[in-house]
């Protein structure tokens, strides 16, 4: 595009204005990304508070929750959590954190904000679809929150909604709340399909000149693969949800055994979606960590192609492992063996990624900035979560630890230790491009070290009590004699979780304070190579003043013979780089 044409296109974009079109129904991918970010951070507060209540009940069963005496019956009784409410708390905590925090931040916020900027284009392929996808997701979130306030309360059958618990009102006493839960996730599925179609089309068709697939930054690769997984996995969940809703409201009996239904079928349908879902939660985190580790080691990512291929391998293998969630549901031992094998094979691409991250750090000129600290925590916590996963993949071990706190520890090391640390790192890293200001480093480091410490105090003991036989989802651990020696751990974990919550306030303060009063950011504060740093800070509607041309891969750091230790993708080639 000539500069005149670019300037013209730029002008066109600036004719809009007004609060509604700029902040509410914006078609700009960057604003939509920020909308997803704020919505998800808000949902994270709700999900976090629910988790704290779960932790309170486990450490101090049937004692009033401090400060909650005002909550009316039947939710709480003078601040005491009844069993029905307890079921609601852990169900909604997981649903909110998985579907309305981690996916919308990783895919909705980072996907929207980064994809057009990093591939060097003006916007998504279908901006209106993009705007709709946010508002539909927000509507789904509203539906889910509203389910707390209907007769019978919110869903209480676990986030996996195992039938028949979820398929008939008699089991949990939850009526409309469970229906709203189902409808909310179906609506979210529509939003997610729109987003995925947009991302895939944009990445396939709208890359800047010279941006070949193997010059894409790894975070774009990860978002591309995640979009494909979402596109394939969520419709299948929608089908299962439709059947569940029919069971509840229209008299069918797909999952109700007393009328010829198959409760195990629900588990198959759910986990056929649910396991790719696990990789949806972690792949973008891997992408974000790859960007940050390379930039702050001032070294090329180790094994770029292997990194991309490993993500593709994980995405493929993710479809043939769902049975490992069902070893205890009753399964032909041959099938169990097959699922055990495929699950263990996933450790190979995961290990490729881990060793490549370590290879990237090896001999690097490491800068311990806030984003880098979070990325390092991502790698180390993900390794703990990944290794505990190998234990569970082995059927003989899984039979022992199934449905114990070992599983809860594992999922939190992967999703909090992995995804959430990547999210904090990603926010700190791209904040300057999002809001034009730097986040405060001191507050960032206080938040990081506090979170890392209290995260481990909260979640590591879960492995110990899990091996000790502490079941998940139990209301009152004091009712079991054999758990008595483990009860002090529950108190330690709860104190840890309160500390974890308090340190998130530091993040919130840093986030909002920096948004308005942080130090002004330059165009490329981290001296990074990728295209988003070629755009002005913050990028205008339409992103680039001139469409960038890409000359090389995204990780050319510390190239021998170059004056600087970075070599942006869009800088026309010098003699040294061309010969290289």
């Amino acid at each position: 595009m000539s500069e005149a044409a670019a300037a013209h296109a730029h002008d066109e974009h600036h004719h809009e204005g007004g609060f509604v079109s700029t902040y509410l129904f914006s078609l700009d991918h960057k604003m939509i990304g920020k909308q997803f970010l704020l919505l998800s951070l808000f949902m994270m507060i709700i999900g976090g508070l629910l988790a704290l209540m779960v932790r309170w009940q486990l450490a101090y069963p049937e004692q009033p929750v401090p400060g909650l005496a005002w909550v009316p019956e039947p939710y709480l009784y003078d601040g005491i959590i009844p069993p029905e409410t307890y079921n609601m708390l852990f169900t909604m905590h997981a649903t909110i954190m998985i579907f309305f925090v981690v996916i919308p931040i990783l895919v909705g916020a980072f996907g929207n904000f980064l994809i057009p900027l990093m591939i060097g284009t003006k916007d998504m392929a279908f901006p209106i679809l993009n705007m709709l996808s946010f508002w539909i997701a927000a509507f789904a979130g509203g539906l889910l929150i509203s389910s707390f306030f209907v007769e019978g309360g919110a869903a209480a059958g676990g986030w996996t909604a195992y039938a028949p618990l979820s398929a008939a009102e008699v089991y949990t006493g939850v009526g409309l709340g469970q229906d709203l839960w189902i409808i909310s996730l179906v609506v979210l599925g529509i939003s997610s399909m729109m987003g995925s179609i947009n991302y895939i089309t944009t990445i396939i068709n709208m890359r800047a000149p010279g941006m070949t697939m193997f010059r894409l930054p790894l975070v774009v690769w990860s978002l591309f693969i995640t979009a494909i997984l979402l596109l394939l996995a969520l419709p299948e969940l929608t089908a299962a949800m439709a059947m569940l809703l029919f069971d509840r409201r229209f008299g069918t009996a797909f999952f109700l055994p007393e009328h010829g239904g198959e409760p195990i079928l629900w588990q198959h349908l759910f986990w056929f979606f649910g396991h790719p879902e696990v990789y949806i939660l972690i792949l973008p985190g891997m992408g974000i960590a790859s960007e940050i580790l390379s930039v702050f080691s001032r070294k090329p990512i180790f094994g770029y192609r292997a990194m991309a291929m490993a993500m593709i391998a994980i995405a493929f293998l993710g479809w043939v492992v769902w049975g490992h969630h069902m070893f205890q549901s009753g399964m032909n031992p041959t099938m169990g063996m097959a699922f055990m094998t495929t699950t263990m094979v996933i450790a190979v691409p995961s290990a490729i990624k881990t060793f490549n991250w370590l290879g990237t750090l090896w001999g690097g000129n490491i800068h311990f900035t806030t984003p880098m600290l979070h990325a390092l925590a991502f790698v180390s916590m993900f390794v703990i979560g990944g290794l505990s996963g190998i234990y569970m993949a082995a059927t003989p071990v899984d039979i022992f630890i199934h449905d114990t706190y070992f599983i809860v520890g594992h999922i939190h090391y992967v999703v909090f230790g992995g995804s959430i640390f990547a999210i904090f790192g990603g926010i700190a890293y791209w904040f300057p491009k999002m809001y034009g200001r730097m986040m405060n480093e001191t507050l960032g480091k206080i938040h990081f070290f506090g979170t890392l410490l209290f995260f481990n105090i909260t979640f590591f003991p879960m492995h110990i009590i899990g091996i000790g036989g502490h079941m998940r989802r139990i209301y009152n651990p004091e009712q079991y004699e054999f758990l008595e020696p483990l009860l002090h751990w529950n108190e330690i974990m709860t104190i840890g979780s309160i500390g974890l919550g308090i340190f998130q306030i530091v993040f919130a303060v840093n986030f909002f304070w920096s948004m308005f009063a942080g130090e002004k950011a330059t165009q490329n504060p981290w001296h990074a190579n990728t295209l988003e740093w070629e755009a002005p800070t913050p990028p205008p509607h339409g992103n680039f003043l001139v469409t960038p041309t890409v000359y090389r891969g995204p990780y050319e750091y510390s190239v021998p013979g170059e004056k600087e230790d970075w070599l942006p993708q869009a800088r026309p080639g010098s003699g040294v780089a061309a010969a290289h």
Partner: protein
Amino acid sequence: MMARSANTAVAHDLAIEEERLHLRVVEPQDGGPPHPPAAPPVSNTRVAIAMFLVAESMFFAGLVGAYLVFRVGSVVWPPAGLPALPLTVTWINTVFLFFSGVAVVSGLRGIRRGDQRALRRRLLLTAALGAVFVSVQGWEWAGLVHHGLTLSSGPYGGTFYLLIGTHAAHVLGAMGWVLWVTAAAQRGRYSVENHDGVEMCAVYWIYVCALWGLLFGLVYH
């Protein structure tokens, strides 16, 4: 440019060759502004509709998978006391849907020749045949309910109504799309050069017809 060493010139030519392989245009050698990227081989709308159909297929794969679990797991299908599904009427109905697919293709060919009248008439015929299909199915359902097959007749009734009903809903949605495109055609929206909207709609209609072929074979036989 002349002063460039032979070594870098070769490297630069190699870089250009690599760009060509990836169907992209590199910045011209005189250092002027870069060319716009070559038009992608498959347009955005086509990629999008392909992705949408993939998602739809996964949705039906879930329902069909559940149906097969029940059907393969049953000794007697249909279960004793429940009516078998009417084959003759449904075969005739399938022919209607088949010809609706022929009609939509014919309409698409019409606009490719620039024949606006053929486009509008064939699209209307498509929607009409779709309406006949759904009506016959509704009549068939009324008969089945009369004979005691309802949603609560165990997995046999449940899977039948859910699977076939979901397909019927897709036919209705596709009819809405066809009528919307017909209205746009009435306003002269499409031409020989630009008829992406017709093409997308026709692809979706044919997808829904083909899906029926699969479901008819699986559920009614």
